[in-house]
């Protein structure tokens, strides 16, 4: 696997890592729960066709500053600062899980932010008749199987590279989980439903067919709320971490939509 170029964007004065690889029209990708501690095959797939720009949200691996963010306004402002700092205003934007939540929120608050949107298993809605799983109340072994249809891949992703400080590596993972909880605890519902109509750009909703965190029916709920034209794609056999479970199929779905 090749290595991305890396630069730093400051958000509230705190460093946030931005990875970049490939050439052509920019495509932003904001990762989901846990963030990205390393470059992945999924990103390689995207980078083969587009200039992929991957900013890290505050508190996720490569970025600090989640502890300054107290409410949705703080998070949306930080997301806008980060995406704009990464040069992504007006670009195609994709996000997964909590990354998709924030991309959608930022797009709803800031028209013109995204040319087109791809939301992969976004969190942010909650229907108590068909609740989103509680990712913060799981035993460790249950959590892996909840997030991924291929827990062994998740274990490999979470294994520290040789020479890495084990304590700091663990804290990196825990911090990313805390950052997500800081925004979405306890149900993930921050009122996004009331703002979806402000998303007027073409939007692809992608769901892992085996997503155990956000039920597949939520794709329809998002599609109904968004004002722009929407399409829904299911990725067979993929769990919540579709980027890990089916990197090629997910990249293919995204690139096909973006044309």
């Amino acid at each position, binding site marked *: 696997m090749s290595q991305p170029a890396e630069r730093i964007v400051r958000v509230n004065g705190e460093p946030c890592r931005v990875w970049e690889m490939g050439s052509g029209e920019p495509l932003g990708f904001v990762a989901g729960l846990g963030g990205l501690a390393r470059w992945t095959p999924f990103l390689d797939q995207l980078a083969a066709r587009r200039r992929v720009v991957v900013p890290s949200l505050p508190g996720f691996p490569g970025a600090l500053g*989640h*502890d300054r963010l*107290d409410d949705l306004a703080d998070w949306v402002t930080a997301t806008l600062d980060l995406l704009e700092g990464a040069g992504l205003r007006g670009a195609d934007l994709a996000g997964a899980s909590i990354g998709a939540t924030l991309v959608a929120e930022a797009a709803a608050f800031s028209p013109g932010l995204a040319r087109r949107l791809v939301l992969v298993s976004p969190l942010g809605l909650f229907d108590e008749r068909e609740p989103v799983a509680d990712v*913060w*109340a*799981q*035993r460790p072994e*249950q959590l892996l199987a909840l997030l991924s249809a291929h827990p062994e891949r998740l274990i490999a992703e979470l294994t520290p590279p040789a020479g890495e400080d084990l*304590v700091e590596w*663990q*804290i990196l993972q*825990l*911090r990313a*989980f*805390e*950052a*997500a*909880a*800081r925004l979405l*605890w*306890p149900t993930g519902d921050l009122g996004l439903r009331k703002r979806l109509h402000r998303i007027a750009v073409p939007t692809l909703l992608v769901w892992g067919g085996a997503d155990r965190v956000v039920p597949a029916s939520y794709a329809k709920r998002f599609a109904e709320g968004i004002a722009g034209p929407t399409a829904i794609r299911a990725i067979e056999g993929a769990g919540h971490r579709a980027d890990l479970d089916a990197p090629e199929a997910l990249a293919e779905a995204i690139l096909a939509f973006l044309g």
Partner: protein
Amino acid sequence: MKLLWFHLMPYTDLPEDFAERYGSVWVDIDPKLFDARRGHQLYNEFIDELELAAELGFDGICVNEHHQNGYGLMPSPNLIASALCRSTRDAAIVVMGNSIALYNPPTRVAEEFAMLDCLSGGRLVAGFPVGTPMDTCYAYGQNPSLLRARYYEAHDLIVKAWQAREAFAWNGRFNKQRYVNPWPRPVQKPHPPIWIPGGGSVETWQWCARMDYVYAYLSYFGYQAGRAVMQGFWDEMERLGKDRNPYRAGFLQFVGVAESRAEAMDLYRESAEYFYGRCLCVDARFAMPPGYTTEATLRAKVTSQLAQAARRADEQKRAFSKPSFEEIVSKGYVIVGSPDEVAEQLREVATELNVGQLMLLLQYGNMGRDLTAYNTELFAKRVMPQLHELFGERWENRWWPKPLPAEDRVR
């Protein structure tokens, strides 16, 4: 030293196969197990027991706050404390405490504690716990990543509200109140003594030292498991240049007294096995909400030796098993014996851990009122006199309530 009688108010009728059949005693405990007729009896019996302890001369009686919990039936300890203010005369009323980050606005706690201090004539100890993950994050939906910041702000607001000479505006990070001005104000000036129930976090020790508050380690796992934590606490006090005044520290210990050790082993087996085998059955998925433990404490937990011991205790808690009474006693969770044997062991515990505010659990699990009264009475009459003089005149207990003179208090 001070000897305090602590009630958790456990539900006493959990089924024998609770651990096997039901997931958790906390957060999502099966509501069908609660019989309100039994609740009526239990609350009244439990208040009787606290009153008996006060009558028999315990220095303080303690209540605490839990939510959605089968071994702690006090979502509002202040309700129980208000009844105790009326029915007792001299004992300290130790509310251990109110989870101040949960209240909106937190000045509600300033008001209620001031009410209790007035009602009791200045006998209140104000406990301010952060609260467990189960109570705060899972039952009350508080954000674990914001909990501590909210806690510290709530504390600052309450303490200022008690002392301010005029109404003030509070424009905090989490609380905005244009006019803060609680009526009533506490009897004790500048405010009731503040005790902080805590786990083993370094920041809490440092904060207690800075604020000059009592740190109380309320573990259910006795003096052997508590040794490492209290050692860590005193090491930190030394590092910060604080004296070793034992009244800076509180500690909780389960006890069963009888005429002989054999009798104690016989009498307290059922209630101890009930507590450790049913009441502590908490689903591990509610143990670690992200952000509840600070990064500094996480680092300390994996690096320092002290914290490795604390971590073993955590793991013990998480890996639930039903211990036998022999195991419970040999690990020191419950101290049992004749009055002399118990006094001897507690003297050792208090001396070694250097704890001046010793809280005793003399009712636990499904222990009924008769056995509770027996345990309490034997302790008061034959153990307490052997311990009261410990630490003697050497240290001043600056953290004890200063009530109105007896003649000024309503009888």
